C-alpha cells in the first residue's frame, strides 16, 4: 500500500500515535517473559498506558483499529527508537528511558497546543509518562550500580539505543507546518543538551556512541 497523502495535522497524529502504538506493542512482547512476576506486571502496565495513548490518537486521526492493524509496515510513522528490539531487560529499559524522557518534554509543551484535542490528550498522557520516565530511571540506576554484568548490560542497552535519539529532534516539512500552526512544539527547542542532562545525569558530554548511526532514512512505501 502506498503512503496516502494526508493533511499535516493527521500526519502528526499518526506520528505521535504510532510512537505510542509501536512502543506499546514492543513492551507487550515481554508479557509472560519478564525476569520476575512483578516486572512482568510493571511492563504490561506501561504497555497498556501506551496502547491507550495510541487508541486516542489514532481514533482522532481516523479509524483507529484499521490504522493499527491494516496498514503495511512502511506506512507506519513512528520513530526508529520505539521499534528497536527489546533485547534484554536492560536494553528495553534504556529504550524506555530515552523515549519517555523525550516524550515527557514533548507532552509538557503539547499541553499548550492550539489544538484542543492534542492539548487535552497531552494533559492526560503527561502524568502517565512522568511515571514511565521515573520507573525507567530507577531501573537504569539500579542496573548500573548492580553487578558487573548488570552494569555492562545497561551500558550495552544505552549503546544500542542512543544512535536513534537524534531523529527525535529532526524537523521536516510536515512537522514544520504543524509547528507553525501552534499545533506541535518544536523538538529543536527541547534541546539535545538538556535532554542529555535529563536522561544521563553524570554521564556528561560523553554519551555512548560506539555503535554506528542508522541509515539517514527508511525506505519509502512506493517503489
Amino acid at each position, binding site marked *: 500500500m502506498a503512503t496516502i497523502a494526508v493533511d499535516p495535522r493527521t500526519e502528526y497524529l499518526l506520528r505521535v500515535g504510532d510512537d505510542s502504538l509501536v512502543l506499546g506493542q514492543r513492551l507487550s512482547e515481554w508479557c509472560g517473559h519478564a525476569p520476575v512476576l512483578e*516486572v512482568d506486571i510493571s511492563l504490561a502496565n506501561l504497555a497498556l498506558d501506551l496502547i491507550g495513548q495510541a487508541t486516542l490518537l489514532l481514533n482522532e486521526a481516523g479509524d483507529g483499529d484499521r490504522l493499527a492493524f491494516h496498514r503495511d509496515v512502511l506506512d507506519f510513522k513512528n520513530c526508529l527508537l520505539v521499534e528497536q528490539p527489546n533485547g534484554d531487560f536492560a536494553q528495553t529499559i534504556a529504550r524506555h528511558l530515552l523515549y519517555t524522557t523525550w516524550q515527557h518534554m514533548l507532552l509538557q509543551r503539547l499541553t499548550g497546543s492550539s489544538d484542543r484535542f492534542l492539548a487535552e490528550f497531552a494533559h492526560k498522557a503527561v502524568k502517565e509518562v512522568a511515571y514511565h520516565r521515573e520507573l525507567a530511571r530507577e531501573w537504569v540506576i539500579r542496573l548500573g550500580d548492580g553487578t558487573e554484568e548488570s552494569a555492562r548490560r545497561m551500558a550495552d542497552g544505552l549503546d544500542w539505543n542512543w544512535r536513534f535519539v537524534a531523529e527525535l529532534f529532526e524537523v521536516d516539512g510536515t512537522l514544520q507546518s504543524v509547528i507553525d500552526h501552534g499545533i506541535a512544539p518544536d523538538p529543536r527547542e527541547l534541546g539535545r543538551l538538556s535532554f542529555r542532562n535529563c536522561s544521563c545525569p553524570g554521564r556528561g558530554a560523553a554519551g555512548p556512541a560506539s555503535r554506528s548511526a542508522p541509515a539517514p532514512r527508511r525506505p519509502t512505501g512506493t517503489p
Partner: protein
Amino acid sequence: MSSDWPLWEVFVRAKGGLSHRHVGSVHAPDGELALAHARDTYTRRLEGVSLWVVPSAKIIASDPDRAGELFEPAEDKIYRHPTFYDIPDEVKHI
C-alpha cells in the same frame, strides 16, 4: 531471581480518612521499587490514594501455636464489645 529479592508487605489507603489496609506483598530489591511494584500490582484499578510498603522481615508475628492463650480468653467477654451503643447513621467507617 525473584527469590533474591526481599519480600515487602503492601498496604493501600482506599481513600482519605480510611486507614491503610494490607492487600498483599511484592518482591523488590529496595523500598523505592517495592513502591513501584506495589503501585503497578495493587492500584492499577483506582484502588488507592496512598501506599505503604514494609519489609516483611520487619513484621513481628504472633505464634499460631499460642493462639489459645492469646485469643481464646476474649471469647466469653462480650461486655467488651461496644454493642450497647446506638451509632448515629452519619458516622461511617467505625
